């Protein structure tokens, strides 16, 4: 039995002036699966994610979430669709002026209009799920380490138990041990929630840990896709060069 994919992207194009960033991306993600998109810097990973999230409008192509076309949604419908999402940003993107629990409870208070005391209770539960102690609740983001900020970002992403999770370079800038903690937490939360996940990263260790499937983007197109276990014998020279972190190969990193 074939079911419709949770996320379906077809023929997606996005340019900035003469710079063609996405050049016909085709990508489907089934419900409950974790897809990791790998690729070098400037290959269009972040732009792809921003288009799916509705933060950027593609020039051409289709993005369907649960079968609903989302590229031309009104602001109200965009907010409704965003209610299905949880997003962990690369730098955490925590609100400086708010405490940790207020960051985690932001959507609950301001979009879902849940009373503050109930929202705080839910925020503390989400923090506990990512191993953040309650004593951190009233601190400001600047008082936390990078790893703890990532965990706050993860708690904020999962607090409403979203159907779809996005992770933007979740381990960038973290030491290997903290990165492993984040990878494990991401995998746990995706599995516990039964959520569909799309992550972008160039950290292969992270990709192996959190992916059911891996896709590689190069020059604005998906050039390979397969199960995570096949990544080391993909048969694709571009993927092999990327996975082995080699300067030699078809990807010209010196060409500017």
């Amino acid at each position: 039995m074939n079911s419709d994919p949770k996320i379906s992207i077809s023929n997606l194009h996005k340019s900035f002036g003469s710079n063609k960033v996405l050049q016909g991306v085709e990508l489907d993600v089934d419900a409950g699966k974790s897809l990791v998109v790998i690729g070098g810097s400037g290959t269009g990973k972040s732009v792809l994610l921003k288009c799916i999230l509705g933060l950027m409008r593609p020039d051409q192509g289709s993005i369907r979430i649960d079968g609903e076309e989302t590229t031309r949604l009104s602001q109200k419908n965009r907010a409704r669709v965003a209610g299905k999402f949880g997003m962990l940003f690369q730098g955490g993107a925590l609100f400086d002026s708010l405490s940790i629990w207020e960051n985690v409870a932001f959507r609950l208070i301001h979009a879902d209009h849940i009373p503050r005391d109930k929202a705080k209770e839910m925020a503390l539960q989400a923090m506990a799920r990512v191993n953040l102690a309650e004593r951190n609740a009233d601190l400001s983001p600047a008082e936390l380490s990078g790893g703890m900020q990532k965990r706050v970002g993860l708690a904020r992403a999962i607090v409403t138990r979203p159907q779809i999770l996005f992770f933007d370079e979740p381990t960038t800038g973290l030491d290997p041990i903290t990165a492993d903690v984040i990878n494990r937490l991401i995998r746990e939360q995706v599995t516990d929630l039964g959520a569909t996940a799309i992550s972008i990263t160039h950290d292969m260790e992270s990709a192996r840990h959190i992916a059911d499937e891996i896709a590689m983007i190069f020059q604005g197109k998906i050039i390979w896709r397969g199960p995570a276990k096949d990544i080391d014998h993909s048969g694709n020279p571009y993927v092999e060069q990327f996975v082995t972190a080699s300067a030699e190969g078809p990807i010209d990193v010196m060409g500017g």
Partner: protein
Amino acid sequence: MNPLASIGRASLGMSRTTGRVALFAWHCFLAMIRPPWFFGQIWRQILGIGFYSLPVVGLTAVFTGAALALNIYTGGARFNAESFVPNIVGIGITRELGPVLASLMLAGRVSAAIAAEIGAMKVTEQIDAMRTLSTDPFRYLFAPRLIAALIVVPMLVLIADIIGIFGGFAVATQSLGFNGALYVRNTMDFITSWDVGSGLIKAAVFGFIIALMGCYHGYVSGRGAQGVGRATTNAVVSAAILIFASNYLLTSLFV
């Protein structure tokens, strides 16, 4: 280099920017008049823009009033019109100097702070994060600042009017030999409610400009510290220019 091409490019760039600012202002206006309103944010901005600006506005006003009294006395002495000091200080402060100088000080303090804060939020993806949390930054970030500025800048200007007139009074009575009671009576008799009211209307317009320029330049801020720094400078400069330009337009309407 074709000079016509340069002029054309500059004109197109200016038209583009004007269009962007107009669209941004329209979105802000819609966010201001439509619920939900974030009252906690509005209150926080009222404190930030209003209460904490009192010292700078007060000091600007008192010294301006004092200097104005001295200048009018010196100029008036040339044709035996020294007695007009209270009248001209009053009308000068309420119609022109109170609103314009207080707003310029606020452009420096408030526009810059708003642009820096919003620019920093932009480059650290906090505004994108807000959108993914189903919250419209126009409603949560920009509308509260604009509403707060619309409310508090006229209040600050009213305070500046009072302090500015007091500055003139202090100099006139302490240095220039004016009788205090007579000075106050002359001032009260001469100033009309329209003098004060037209200054407060100007202040509301200037308040909108101050907050709008801070929000806009923060929102379109480039990446990195340099981008945020440039946004801050642009916010202050454009707010100051728009205050002067709109002051002329409003003055020509009110006289």
